[in-house]
């Protein structure tokens, strides 16, 4: 049962790569937006908050279609990126990563924002009386104390990216070896006669990856947590 065919392996590796790239690339933006929402009051804050959370409530197909319109080769942003940097999203694995990143972004921001809000601001005051400017306070006090939340957000984002289906398939289709992730492969296999065994194999792989990610995050978060209470 556990001999994956080369095609299935490709889908697994592709899924992992897409989810990892989506999580790592969105992380800095997620931290920045979470910090803005947690700490700053500015005009348009409610709008930014709403925009960030939109992919959570919109039908994924709508998000995927909007990405297609904007980031497709003919789309305003897609055409610009293609002409200027040679970056192409449409029907590439990079597009799948973009779709996954956008869909996972609300979860990433939410987890990090909550951990920023839970930090004792008085520790930041103490750091500034010791000579740390805003940037150093953030780097040496705020971010390390928010680390468990950052890790939780990354795992959520990774899991969401791994399972993303609707926006990805709408934006970059379902091309084996390029944009066909585990989810898309399972879906395809269930549509063809005799695909059940292969679909089941991929289902087991998906469960295994999700479990490993959860356990790893738990371990990281606990390690980060114990650091604050001695040991």
């Amino acid at each position: 049962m556990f001999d994956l065919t080369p095609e299935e392996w490709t889908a697994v590796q592709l899924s992992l790569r897409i989810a990892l790239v989506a999580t790592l690339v969105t992380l800095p933006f997620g931290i920045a937006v979470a910090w803005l929402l947690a700490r700053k009051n500015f005009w348009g804050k409610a709008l930014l908050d709403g925009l960030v959370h939109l992919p959570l409530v919109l039908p994924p197909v709508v998000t995927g279609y909007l990405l297609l319109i904007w980031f497709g080769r003919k789309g305003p942003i897609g055409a610009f990126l293609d002409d200027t940097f040679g970056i192409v999203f449409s029907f590439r694995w990079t597009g799948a990563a973009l779709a996954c990143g956008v869909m996972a972004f609300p979860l990433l921001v939410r987890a990090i924002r909550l951990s920023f809000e839970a930090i004792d601001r008085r520790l930041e005051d103490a750091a500034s009386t010791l000579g740390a400017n805003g940037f150093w306070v953030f780097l040496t006090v705020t971010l390390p104390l928010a680390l468990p939340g950052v890790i939780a957000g990354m795992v959520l984002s990774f899991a969401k990216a791994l399972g993303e289906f609707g926006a990805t398939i709408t934006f970059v289709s379902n091309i084996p070896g390029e944009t066909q992730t585990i989810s898309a492969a399972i879906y395809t296999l269930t549509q063809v006669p005799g695909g059940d065994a292969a679909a089941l194999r991929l289902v087991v792989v998906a469960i295994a990856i999700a479990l490993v990610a959860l356990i790893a995050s738990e371990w990281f978060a606990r390690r980060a947590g114990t650091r604050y209470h001695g040991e």
Partner: protein
Amino acid sequence: MLAVDVEKRLGEFRIAAKFETMGGAAALFGASGAGKTSIVNMIAGLVTPDRGRIALDDNVLFDSVARVNVPAHRRRIGYVFQEGRLFPHLTVAQNLDYGRWMSGLPPDPAEHERIVSLLDIGALLPRRPGRLSGGERQRVAFGRALLMKPRLLLLDEPLASLDRPRKLEILPYLARLRDEAKVPMIYVSHQAGEILRLASQVIRIEDGRVQAAGGLELLDAEAAR
């Protein structure tokens, strides 16, 4: 010398305080809720006054007319908080070094050694604050504030969170700090006893205002109560 003349409205409460200190140890004395901590926060730069002027020696830290407001991280004023506020994710040694790193000061092993032994915290260096007793934590907080080589040390009820035996354990260290560290101190407290042991000058705060300023004789009435 520290010259303070500030006004600040905090909701219904209004602070309007004017006083000067002469170096050495000056006490801000008054009941809880009299506005002492707010005044000290303004000196440290953590709270911005609505109006007024704060100057340390020839250095203007805040002046609402001249629009001067030196940010907290450039004031070089050490601050020991009531609850210590040690960084929980750093060891004691890293907490002690934090101010030096952030202020860009070169290492000074002799001074480090002197303060660590003065406060008797050598054995705590590798530990994290979560595992320290309240008294140990406060001693580390004194060390952290001193090792940034402050021009002024603010102590906001540093003993208030400790029980009586711990207080008695810390008081001698504070007296040694005053005598040996040679940094001018502002000591905030509502305990006349602590002030009698530590301060030479008393500024009495009531309801956000300076009600009297002078020597330790200001505490006599308090002690008689």
